[in-house]
């Protein structure tokens, strides 16, 4: 089983910091406009953003490492296997003949680290697209062309 590029941890850290800041901004607004007007509100102004800051901070420090240590994928003879998840663990297999098309996606954070995500589409409706994040860009391209060979037109 293969692991992702370790740099993906940094990408995730940036995502989590971003999310924490966003939640802090929202709770700050709620605190300012709603809770500070309540007479019975037991906490001081800025309590909620502080709480988010602490929880988000712990999450940002602990989670990327756990997530990285629990993310595996493997290209087998006939199928692609994914193993991932910290709290909910998910094992998936996507047979190559079921792959409809493959995208390489790269957002600005990923580009900073030269990484990209491989998005694999099947005709399935539930876990329709499987995403492998944190692959070096050249490797993602390699995988894409490799998987393309396997994908054949196949009726649903």
């Amino acid at each position, binding site marked *: 089983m293969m692991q992702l590029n370790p740099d993906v941890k940094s990408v995730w850290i940036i995502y989590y910091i971003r999310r924490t800041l966003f939640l802090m901004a929202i709770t700050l607004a709620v605190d300012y406009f709603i809770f500070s007007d309540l007479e019975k509100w037991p906490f001081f102004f800025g309590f909620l953003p502080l709480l988010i800051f602490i929880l988000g901070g712990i999450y940002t420090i602990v989670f990327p490492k756990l997530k990285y240590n629990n993310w595996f994928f493997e290209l087998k003879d006939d199928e692609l296997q994914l193993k991932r998840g910290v709290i909910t663990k998910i*094992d*998936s297999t996507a047979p190559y003949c*079921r792959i409809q098309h493959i995208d390489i996606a790269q957002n600005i954070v990923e580009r900073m680290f030269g990484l990209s995500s491989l998005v694999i589409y099947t005709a399935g*409706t539930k876990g329709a697209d499987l995403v492998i994040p944190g692959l070096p860009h050249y490797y993602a391209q390699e995988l894409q062309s490799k998987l393309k060979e396997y994908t054949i037109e196949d009726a*649903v």
Partner: protein
Amino acid sequence: MNHENGIWEKRLHPLTLVYRLITTLPNIAFPIVFVLYGGNTEDWIYIIISILLGFFVLPGLFLNYYYFDYSITDSEVIIRSGIFSKKERHIKIERIQNISVTQNFIHKILNIAKVQLETAGDATTEGVLDSVSKADAHHIKEVVKAYQNEKEAEKTGENAELLIGNESKEEEDENVIFSMSLMDTIRYGALRFRPVVLAASAWIFSMVSQFSPKWTEQLEQILESGYKDYIKQLDVFMITLYVLLGVFSILFISWLIDILLTVNTYHKFKLVSERGKLVTSQGLFSTRISAIPLKKLQMMVIKSNPITRKLNFFRLDMQTAGFGGGDGSKAKSETAIPFAKISQIKDIIQRIRGVELPFEFNKVSPKTIRRAAIRYLFYSVPFGFALYFSFDSFWILLVLIPIIAFAAYIRYQYRGYNVIDDQIFVKQGFWFQKISVIPIEKIQTLHKRSTYFQRRLDLATVEIDTAATVYGSDASIIDIDEEVATEIFDELNRLFIENKNMQKAEKTQQTNTEL
């Protein structure tokens, strides 16, 4: 180009104008509603809006009709439309998978029909002819079929489509597999007990009961005196009588409504087998005809509730990947048999897929009872609060315990799965039981999922994803032992790969022998 047999630049039926007028009139007249409800005759402004709307809309209707025509040649169907910006849509004859002819109530009165051309590829390339005369609809079907047969005759040696029963091309006799009498339909309606209808009729009941003057007085009394005081002043007998009466009348009304609705949708239900597909037709006021292409058939679901199960009646739904295919957005579930004895359903499944339904199912882990009980406990918290406050006693909450335990136990009892003959069978539900039949070759992706709580109990869930998982109809094997789950997961994967490799080998062998 073959002009005599084909159809060339033909307009829709003139009665289409009447039809469109009838359907758009309510929109135009909508502002007038304000006048009628307001009862204020000075609101003439709304009438003017209506007239203005009519002034713009009505010529539009006519022009739309005038600049719309369709042609059918031996290679494609061409639909041209548009007043200012012209649009021409070409649909290749061989790509047309199905032609559905539908009639709603107004169509029926005007003796016209709506023709829909459904293709296999992109979901958006569909042609709609709304509306043509019934004879024309039939003619279009004939012409397209004739051209398709020609095309098919040209490329011989193509893989033959799945046939049910023996049907020759010349004979257009309907091969009816299943039909329902009026009595059957009524019986079906009487046994359905859909919660949606129950909720709807509860709402209607509350609306109607408003008109009884006594009822409102009593309601006011209740509100004024406070709910608790009112209940205390009544004796137990009266309360139970009130409650029972209310509940029974709601149930009765919903029961009647359900029967009527069922007769409306399933009147003269018929399942016909055609080349490569099953076609259902049904409906009292508006006839609905829809096709189930067997090539795209993914999963079959047998449904029942405790009462129909007791009487040995079941319903069979078929989920297809849709004509759109691929993206799953057009995935749909079609009822193939609304109401039939299990033997009949087994027979039809046998004919379509050659599958025998299993008598026994493997049970999921009994630890699921514990998980379900905890989950139900959380769900019943609001209910518990309501009980606590209305009876003012803590002991009443004990009533919930046996209910929760029983519900959790039943959930476990009625869950099961089995894998036989390249088919996966998943059974779930007591009130609304579903037995899903999934061919292994239709698997798209497989997932094994275990949440933190499941892992603590050494459990996991196996999810089977096909191209036709209609919302709320997923077939997951929930809460089986981790080891068993891994085993099934690997086994299904292996079976699928083997199946595909075998197909591939067969294909290459075929081409080799041809060469």
